């Protein structure tokens, strides 16, 4: 199958960013927390490609280090969202009745508080830690995943091949795993790509508000927050992580669009 252009461009860009995050400390020109009072607010140049911050730390090195935390929060949150949301959605959709009712009422609770505020509520309890941020963001997006999986499951569960499986006496785990799930994946994967972008942005926003990462460690959101007071004299310190963040989000969005093009049967179906 030919890959759509958006998928090629998106996954290419994302691969570069992910490689930087993985190799971060190895390829960084300076340690991310090395201060140098003599070199404060140096504009981008030959030694410091992206300049330095208020402690004279190299912005590029910090960006590379932050990439790891930012991606971890985005991908970790989405992973959590999948692990929690897909089984709940499958159960709600397949069993229906009381199980469905219970799961959906639980979901109503989570969505009764707007996203960032839910994050604040969860994270304000204990000291910041990127893993916790990831899980908090994951929890916030679980309802969307549950609803999607449930809707897809409902649709597939009424298909005749599922009824045939029940008629020959298959157990629930086989029906869910072998009959429903393989057909439910496409929309879930497309939604996951979308969730990654939202999770990266929400994670960064929570960090920006001081609820994500503990200084001196820093992700892109916290880097922007720290650079904010000096925005007039040293804009590059804030702009560099911001631009990288946007590029990452656009790359994942492109991947999502490309996947949708390949996987969404509605776009493929010709005329009858």
């Amino acid at each position, binding site marked *: 199958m030919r890959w759509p252009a958006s998928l090629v461009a998106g996954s290419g860009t994302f691969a570069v960013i992910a490689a930087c995050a993985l190799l971060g400390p190895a390829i960084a020109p300076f340690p991310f927390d090395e201060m140098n009072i003599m070199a404060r607010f140096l504009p981008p140049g030959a030694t410091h490609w992206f300049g330095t911050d208020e402690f004279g730390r190299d912005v590029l090195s910090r960006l590379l280090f932050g990439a790891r935390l930012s991606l971890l929060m985005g991908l970790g949150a989405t992973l959590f969202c999948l692990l929690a949301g897909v089984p709940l959605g499958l159960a709600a959709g397949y069993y229906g009745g009381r199980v469905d009712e219970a799961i959906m009422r639980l979901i109503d*609770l989570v969505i009764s508080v*707007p996203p960032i*505020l839910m994050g604040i*509520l969860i994270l304000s309890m204990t000291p910041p830690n990127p893993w916790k941020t990831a899980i908090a963001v994951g929890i916030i997006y679980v309802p969307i995943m549950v609803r999607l999986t449930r809707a897809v499951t409902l649709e597939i569960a009424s298909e005749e091949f599922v009824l045939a499986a029940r008629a020959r006496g298959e157990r629930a785990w086989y029906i869910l795993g072998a009959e429903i799930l393989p057909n439910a994946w496409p929309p879930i994967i497309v939604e996951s790509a979308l969730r990654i972008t939202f999770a990266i942005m929400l994670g960064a926003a929570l960090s920006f508000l001081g609820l994500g990462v503990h200084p001196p460690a820093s992700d892109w959101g916290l880097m922007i927050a720290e650079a904010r007071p000096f925005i007039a004299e040293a804009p590059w310190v804030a702009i560099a992580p911001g631009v990288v963040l*946007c590029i990452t*989000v656009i790359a994942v969005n492109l991947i999502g669009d490309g996947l949708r093009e390949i996987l969404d049967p509605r776009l493929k179906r010709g005329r009858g």
Partner: protein
Amino acid sequence: MLLYTFKRLAYIAVILAVMSVLIFWATQVMPGDVAQMIVGQFATDEQIRAVRGRLGLDDPVHVQYLRWAAALLRGDLGVSMMMDRPIGPLIEDAILRSAVLAGVSIVLVAAIGIFLGVYSAVRKGTAADHAVSIGTYFFISVPEFFWAIIVILLFAGYLGWFPATGYAPMSDGFGTWLQHLVLPVATLVSGLVAHVSRLTRSSMIETMQSQYVIAARAKGLPEALVIRRHALRNALVPTITVLAIDVGMLMGGIVVVETVFSYPGLGRLLIFSIEQKDIPMVQAGILTVTAVYAMANLAADLLYAFFNPRIRYGNAVAR
């Protein structure tokens, strides 16, 4: 319709009751000892004990909760620890200022988003459609807090058109008030407009392919009339749901935007009280936000029902 509203209100009450328990419990496990914070770092054990006794902090958690909830039901939100003032009026002032921000924003989001979505759907495949698509793609990918900083840098720093931060009451003059509103609103609106316009576009395109739109064309109606009379209204029904979701995103966005622009609304008050571990304030603040959000969703649902004759008129089959 009345019964439906009543059902929804009852359900909201249940949700709020459960949330109040969760919020109370969550804030109880917040790090730091409240009594310690009130009396200061160098207080004696005796002083701390006295404060704990006065605030009832030694009672079992459920007793504390019931006391707090009972006060809530009487309309008493408690007293802010840091400001040592009743929370009610504090929140009231903040919420009014936030409401201005949110209200202006959501109206703009709806108007611009729907217009762009319909415009590009109708001109599907043209250069204008592609331009809107690329534009919205970009705006949907920029987080608010970064957008805020860029906007401040550009319009407040280099161009100096608007004040970078702060708030001016209406009494300072309409112009001043408006000036302080422009940048926060622009920041809040950008991403959401993109969101609304993208979803409106796809809903509109889907509607344009529906059988009743083809049937309308078969009547010989000119395309403009087909769009206006048959496609638009049905395409906008799902947009109402999108707007309800966006109200939630907007309320989150407000927290960020108020923090960046030092705008004295509910969001900044909340962040401030979390930083200061002002527990009663955090509890009251989050519960208030939840209540407001629930009401916004109810409004959206009622609007949805109003636009959907299936719900409005029931199923009485005329035979």
